[in-house]
C-alpha cells in the first residue's frame, strides 16, 4: 500500500504550490507570513509521510520536530518585528 502514501505525498506537494500562490501574490506582508506558516505545517506532515514511505519513521520524526520548533521561533520573531512599525 505504499502507492497510497505516494499519492498522499503528491497531494501535499500540490497544496504547497497553492499556498505559494498566496505567498507570491499576497497584498500585505502578513499574508505572506501566513502562507509561509501554512507551507511549514505542510512540510512537517510531508516529512512524517516520507518517513512512512521509506519505513524510517523514527528518523524523519526527529527532523520534523526540529522543523516545527524552527518555524515557531521564526514566526514569532517576524510577528514581533512587524508589530512595532507601520506597514501596509
Amino acid at each position, binding site marked *: *500500500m505504499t502507492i*497510497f502514501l505516494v499519492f*498522499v505525498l503528491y*497531494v*501535499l506537494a500540490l*497544496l504547497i504550490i*497553492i*499556498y505559494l*500562490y*498566496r505567498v507570491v501574490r499576497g497584498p*500585505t506582508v*502578513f*499574508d505572506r*507570513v*501566513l*502562507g509561509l*506558516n*501554512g507551507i511549514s*505545517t*505542510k512540510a*512537517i*506532515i510531508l516529512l*512524517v*509521510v516520507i518517513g*512512512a514511505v521509506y519505513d524510517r*519513521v*523514527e528518523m524523519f*520524526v*526527529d527532523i*520534523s*520536530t526540529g522543523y*516545527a*520548533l524552527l*518555524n*515557531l521561533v521564526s*514566526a*514569532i520573531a517576524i*510577528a*514581533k518585528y*512587524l*508589530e512595532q*512599525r*507601520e*506597514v501596509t
Partner: protein
Amino acid sequence: MSALAVGLILVGLFFLVVAAVGMVRLPDFYTRSHAVALTDSLGAFFLLTGLAVDQAFSTNVISILIVLALLYLLNPVIAHATVRAALRSGIKPWGEDKR
C-alpha cells in the same frame, strides 16, 4: 494498511484541501488566517492519527503523537501572534468600510 488508517488519512487530506481553498478564495487577511489556523490543525490531526494507526504497536506511535502535540501547541500561538501584529499595525477587517 488497514481501512481505518486509509479513511483517517483521506479525511485529513480533505480538511487540508479545504484550508488551501480558503487561503486562495477568502477576501482579506483575517478571514484567511481563520481558515488556515482552524482547518489546518484539524487536517493535521486526522492525517497524523491515520499514520499512527498504520504504524500500530511500535514506538513510532509515540513519536508521531509527540509531533501532533507540538503542532497543536504551536499553531494557535503562531496564528495569534500574526493576527495581533496585523491588528496593531492598522489593517482594517473586511467590511469595516461598508458600514
